């Protein structure tokens, strides 16, 4: 009977991590639905990006106030894991504050004291975040794509963190032995008097409850990640590692198009040539993207990494002038559609069955796509190097090359380029006239 808590603990741990692992596999499968793109080169540069941007938060601090608060919560999250490790060992082996003996009183006091201060700071930061989201009128939190789940998701995360931090401090405050030792309790010593009127048994009960709810809460939170924008705490790392390293203005040259254009321009090519006998019928590739499977895997990883902070949208010239386009919505739509495709595959034993929907039109409208000036402000702003512009461009490519659905004026512009070598209707022979005009 005395091992019952340990067994229960091990079971909860296995269940929590098992379910999480299952979802991570689903996540990885969904990302792999995307096309291949080579992002395995230039390893030192990639590693540096990850260290600076994900680990070092270098892009977060461009907006100093939210950046500073975010760093508190981030450091709190990283450091608190040492405490979680102690809880796991204690839970599995029935020990109590096992690190105290291992690390010695002095160092242990320093560590736990540091955690307590961080926990308190995180609590304050999270409360300010909540106020920013719910009380102050910050435009990027009020956009229409932030209604419903995205809004409650943001708040859920904050509630979770408030509760977890409170439980950690209450757990320390009601640990009578720990309080009596008077080491490493810079915050909890002020919470302890709240429980003065309780019997020692009740205080112990509270301590045990806080301990259990704290660790179970962490396991629940871990599994909440997959369903939440909070997934960024894990994916920010691969996302910055695999991010585009080329100049932002450099758009990829579609290889499938190169082959066709070369053939078109080759004077020796036989336009009536039949494929060689027995040669496999080559299915022409779709140009551009109309659904998530037409995007490459880094674009899909981007979608899962997006924290919906809206820094991209708040810098987007189209959005600032009231147009439909919001780069954040492009990323949220991509993730929503990808999740839908994933559920479809799960429901149909591993194969996608056409559901008559796609990313284009059902999620993202051509109006949004045509409003983009390709200025790269969204790409520049993203604290974790997401590239909404690449998705917009790939979808424009589909509209133009597969559907011939460009706005009329753009069709005129393109006809002019084709016929006159300029976007305007001028004769190419007049191209040097400017030198004689004054």
């Amino acid at each position, binding site marked *: 009977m005395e091992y019952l808590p340990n067994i229960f603990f091990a079971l909860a741990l296995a269940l929590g991590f098992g379910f999480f692992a299952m979802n991570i596999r689903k996540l990885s499968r969904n990302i792999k639905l995307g096309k291949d793109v080579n992002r395995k080169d230039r390893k030192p540069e990639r590693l540096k990006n990850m260290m600076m941007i994900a680990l070092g938060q270098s892009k977060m601090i461009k907006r100093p106030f939210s950046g500073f608060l975010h760093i508190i919560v981030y450091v709190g999250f990283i450091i608190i894991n040492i405490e979680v490790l102690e809880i796991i060992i204690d839970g599995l082996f029935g020990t109590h504050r096992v690190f105290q003996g291992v690390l010695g009183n002095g160092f242990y006091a320093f560590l736990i004291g540091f955690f307590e201060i961080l926990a308190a700071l995180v609590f304050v930061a999270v409360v300010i975040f909540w106020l920013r989201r719910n009380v102050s009128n910050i435009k990027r939190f009020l956009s229409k794509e932030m209604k419903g789940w995205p809004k409650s998701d943001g708040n859920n995360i904050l509630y979770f963190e408030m509760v977890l931090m409170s439980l950690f401090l209450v757990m320390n405050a009601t640990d009578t032995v720990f309080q009596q030792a008077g080491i490493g309790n810079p915050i909890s010593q002020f919470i302890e008097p709240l429980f003065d009127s309780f019997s020692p048994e009740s205080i112990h009960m509270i301590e045990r409850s806080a301990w259990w709810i704290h660790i179970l809460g962490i396991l629940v939170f871990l599994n909440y990640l997959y369903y939440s924008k909070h997934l960024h705490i894990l994916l920010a790392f691969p996302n910055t590692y695999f991010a585009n390293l080329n100049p932002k203005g450099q758009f990829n040259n579609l290889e499938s198009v*190169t082959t066709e254009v070369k053939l078109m321009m080759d004077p020796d090519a036989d336009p009536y040539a039949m494929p060689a006998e027995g040669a496999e019928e080559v299915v022409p590739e779709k140009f551009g993207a109309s659904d998530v499977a037409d995007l490459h895997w880094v674009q899909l990883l981007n979608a899962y990494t997006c924290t919906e902070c809206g820094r991209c949208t708040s810098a987007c010239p189209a959005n600032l002038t009231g*147009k439909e386009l919001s780069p954040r919505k492009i990323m949220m739509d991509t993730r929503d559609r990808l999740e839908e495709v994933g559920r479809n595959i799960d429901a149909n034993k591993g194969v996608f069955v056409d559901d008559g929907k796609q990313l284009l039109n059902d999620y993202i409208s051509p109006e949004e796509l045509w409003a*983009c000036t390709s200025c790269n402000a969204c790409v520049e702003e993203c604290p974790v190097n997401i590239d909404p512009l690449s998705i917009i461009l790939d979808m424009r*490519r589909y509209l*133009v090359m597969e559907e011939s659905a460009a706005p009329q004026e*753009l069709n005129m512009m393109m006809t002019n380029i084709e016929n006159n070598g300029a976007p305007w209707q001028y004769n190419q022979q007049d191209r040097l006239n400017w030198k004689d*005009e004054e």
Partner: protein
Amino acid sequence: MIVPTMAEMMAQGKQPEVLFWVGAAGSYDDRAKKISRAFVKILHQANVDFAVLGTEESSTGDAAKRAGNEFLFQMQAMMNIEVLNGYEVKKIVTCDPHSFNTLKNEYPELGGKYEVFHHTQFIQNLISEGRLKIDDTTLKGKRVTFHDPCYLGRANDVYESPRELIKRLGVNLTEMKRNKSTALCCGAGGAQMFKDAEKGDKEVNVLRTEDALETKPQIIATGCPYCNTMMTDGIKFKEKEAEVEVKDIAELIAEANNL
């Protein structure tokens, strides 16, 4: 104005130091043509041996690519590359950040590898090589603000060379609240120049002009023919033509040096 072509150069058996890629705007747009001429005057003053493609130049395909027409872009690119490689061009300078970006970043994969300069970078090199001086008395004390073109700034991280040149004019350079990597687009990029904007509550160029007007400038300096048009339209919209001029950096230098 003497503007030699590559074909003429070749006929004389000469290879110029640099090819001036004029671009469609610089060739046909009345406003942008003035920028082309100003830049040529600077090249002449610095005794730069240059040539243009003239009637052999064609659209880089930038607008087509950004509108999503990769076919048209690559056809244009391959035709241009054939011409450029035929003349064994090594070095290119252009006043158009869109041509700059496309030639520099998107042509190499298709077989067109050149050393490409924006005219502000090129002029800066001329100065550091001692081939050109800027007279800092003509425009002395004027209040100037610089609008970063997206395809020069964010797209290619060129923020300093235009500013260095402006400072050499002896003017008073003030920054807009959104500048360098956080600069606001003029509204013309991504082929928007050639179509009406989507429904919204304001035009992008008007918002950007408001950014500029907040600095109370006498001159808005630009480094892109499209930005120039957009900002000029914005100034007209705000009815500030009497107080504020929109000028390319090449035009300002030509003016300062009395060319």
